[in-house]
């Protein structure tokens, strides 16, 4: 467990939009092979943090290192896979099979004016298999359930074999019954394939048995540590100003009340 490579190293990171601070003095480090859940209420700066890590927003104060390199020097973006919220303008009537969609994740890797080779075909099948959709690979994506569609997008991110997979609230739009198996699949990706995962969610209670580390964020960093410590902290109660009742969350999930559909805890 020692000497593990630090994949993401964030120190002293602050960010503000106009006059409003959204992130203040954030320090997070993620080691290879870990599964980090970032939890926080809406408007807690989770999305901003993701954008900063992905280089979609320029950092203002503090440091971000990816795979040991300062983010401004970092070029190996294919090492990072990203799956955004499904809602993003995806045309469910698009006539493409699961296979074709996953294959599109290799577009950059195969390169302009180059064609798919046998090895790419095997990579595609492997990615589809790792999200458990091999039986459905020739189905049109429009025929799949919301949870299955989200798996397709994960497979598309996995197909270029990233070392780190970042997921932004992937269970939004996935029905409650399928959320469990969805998280189970994420756990497998982490444990069996050794992919480092960074999951942003407001549903941390559902996955405390899968994640290895937890970050609680609401502008400031309220907690950053291993899951066991988090459980203790949760029992003792988070600081009141965190504004987010974790206890209630995990309870709610235990009864599978389908809060994904509502999606908003504020």
């Amino acid at each position: 467990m020692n000497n593990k490579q630090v994949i993401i190293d964030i120190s002293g990171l602050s960010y503000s939009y106009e006059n409003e601070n959204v992130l203040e003095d954030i320090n997070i480090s993620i080691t290879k092979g870990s599964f980090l859940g970032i939890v926080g209420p809406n408007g807690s700066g989770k999305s901003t943090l993701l954008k900063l890590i992905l280089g979609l927003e320029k950092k203002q104060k503090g440091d971000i290192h990816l795979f040991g390199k300062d983010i401004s020097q970092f070029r190996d973006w294919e090492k990072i896979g990203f799956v955004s919220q499904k809602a993003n303008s995806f045309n469910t009537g698009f006539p493409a099979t699961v296979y074709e969609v996953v294959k599109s994740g290799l577009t950059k890797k195969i390169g302009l004016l180059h064609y798919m080779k046998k090895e790419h075909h095997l990579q595609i099948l492997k990615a589809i298999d790792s999200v458990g959709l091999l039986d459905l690979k020739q189905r049109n994506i429009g025929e799949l359930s919301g949870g299955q569609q989200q798996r397709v997008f994960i497979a598309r991110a996995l197909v270029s074999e990233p070392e780190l997979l970042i997921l932004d609230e992937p269970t939004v739009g996935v029905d409650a019954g399928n959320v469990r198996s969805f998280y189970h699949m994420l756990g497998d990706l982490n444990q069996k394939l050794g992919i480092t995962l960074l999951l942003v969610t407001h549903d941390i209670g559902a996955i405390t048995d899968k994640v290895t580390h937890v970050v609680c964020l609401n502008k400031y960093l309220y907690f950053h540590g291993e899951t066991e410590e988090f459980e203790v902290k949760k029992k003792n109660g988070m600081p009141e100003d965190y504004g987010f009742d974790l206890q209630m969350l995990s309870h709610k999930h235990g009864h599978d009340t389908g809060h994904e559909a509502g999606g908003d805890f504020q």
Partner: protein
Amino acid sequence: MIDAILQYEFLQNAFLTGIIIGIIAPLIGVFVVVRRLSLIADALSHVTLAGIAASLLLEKKFLPAGSLNPIYIGMVFSIVGSLFIEKLRTVYKHYQELAIPIILSSGTGLSVIFISLADGFNTDLFGYLFGSVSAVSRADFWMVLIISIFVIAIILLFYKELFLISFDEEHAKASGIPVKGFHLIFIIMVALVIASSMRIVGVLLVSSLMTLPVASAIRLSNGFKQTILYSIIFGETAVLGGLTISYYLDLAPGGTIVMISVIILILSILRKKGMVKRAV
């Protein structure tokens, strides 16, 4: 029919050209439809009409008869129109479909002015509007062939990029694919295909050959490649059937081609997906 085709060069031209556009119009049409740009073909066909009207006017008033092939000026107008559409789509980022009525009405307005200046309709124009079996020259055929080779080559070379841009433009951008450049090439290809097809189906019905076979194919197909294949089969059936009927019954081919497409579409809607899948 075969006898007649062997005997008359104009029929050879019409059928050879028809076979080609029966491939390229639905082929490019698949990308047009899935990107929800179906109406762009309509807008561009009206701009092409303006080019044809301008050409006919020039020929009538200033140049000796037969010195201009209207298809060339039509093509130039169509490409210029396509560039305007791309520009307008960035100007009105949040109302991208506005580009279509703007270009469509500009094209129609220009056409009407040119036609009036040329002192009204003539029979040539009728052929351009609704297609013609007899008006396709050997030169037209060669030009359509060259354009189709260009279009098919681009699609084969950049299939995976075009697919990704059509399916998920954001992801394409994030993967570093030059999305803007591809948009430009794509819209120019649409313009070229429209100008190529108008001799056979006519300006007013060109867009139907790009969209109706695709609309049928989407109902029945599994996956993108199959959608392309079915679209081409349906498009080809409509063109060849339409031209044949048009020749025997002396009807404008635009009408017969489109009506066969409509019949295929109705059948595809009526047929249950599972049944067709088993049959294919």
